[in-house]
């Protein structure tokens, strides 16, 4: 590798040879071993530019943004939609009463009683996934 090529690579890719294109790294390290003073001067200059560039502050992703992004995912939308249909239907009590009439109350009650806190939504999702939720409280 020539000095000019080493210099142009540093100008493009910065002062860390490890971040240069993989196909030139061996030759660059060989140049550095053969001409350490020239290489050091070039790399020091490039590192100073790297340091300036790295002073640009990173923008953190807020929790609100993360939540909005996740809420827009199809799985989240579908879950919300099912839950909404359930909650805006005849109501949980009425739904369960309807389920009783349909002869499935025992199984549902058992599931509700066994479900730990926080899993209600998952249970509702399961009910709707099996079509039972529509029967329980769906408006459509």
């Amino acid at each position, binding site marked *: 590798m020539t000095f000019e090529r080493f210099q*142009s690579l540093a100008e493009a890719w910065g002062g860390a040879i490890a971040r240069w*294109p993989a196909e030139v790294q061996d030759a660059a390290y060989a140049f550095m071993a053969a001409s350490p003073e020239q290489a050091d001067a070039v790399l020091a200059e490039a590192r100073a530019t790297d340091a*300036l*560039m790295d*002073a640009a502050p990173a923008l953190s992703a807020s929790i609100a943004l993360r939540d909005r992004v*996740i809420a827009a995912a199809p799985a989240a939308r579908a879950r919300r939609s099912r839950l909404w249909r359930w909650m805006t239907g005849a109501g949980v009590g009425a739904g369960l009463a309807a389920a009783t009439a349909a002869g499935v109350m025992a199984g549902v009650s058992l599931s509700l009683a066994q479900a730990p806190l926080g899993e209600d939504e998952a249970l509702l999702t399961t009910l709707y996934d099996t079509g039972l939720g529509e029967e329980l409280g769906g408006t459509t």
Partner: protein
Amino acid sequence: MTGNDPDQDLVARVGRGDPAAIQALVARKLPRLLQLAHRMLNDAAEAEDVAQEVFLRAWKQAPTWVPGAARFDTWLHRVAMNLCYDRLRRRREQPMAEPPEQVDPGPAPDRRLLAGDTGSRVNAALGALPDRQREAVVLCHYQELGNIEAAGLMGVSVEALESLLARGRRALRAALADLRE
């Protein structure tokens, strides 16, 4: 990991609506995409809008994503970059109520700034680069894409990418010369 795309399995699970995979993909990609948009646009609110839009498209794409043609990360970058260019184009076409922040071209000893201001100066200097130079710098320096991936994403040769990078870095060094003391 499957094949050459480290995101392949995760994307497949996202496509099946796996909530844990959705959260994992967001945790893995949202900070990167937000950074890319912020570096390109130098506007936090617009960067958030772009990041959200990229994910909307990712949610649509995931169920039908066919591995092999491109890495999912590269595809995300391309979508984000296109959205950034759309916004940059609109900025140029519409007169702005407030002019964008400009890089102060005149280095002088009394303009040495505190660390927080240094960051703002760097962002402004990035924003003042020609679009293609800024894209090359953002993809290679900040997003740490390899030369072949970045060149492919930009639709230029590796040599052209290297030239854009070198010119971009030189312009940044010149714009920020007063900070190097």
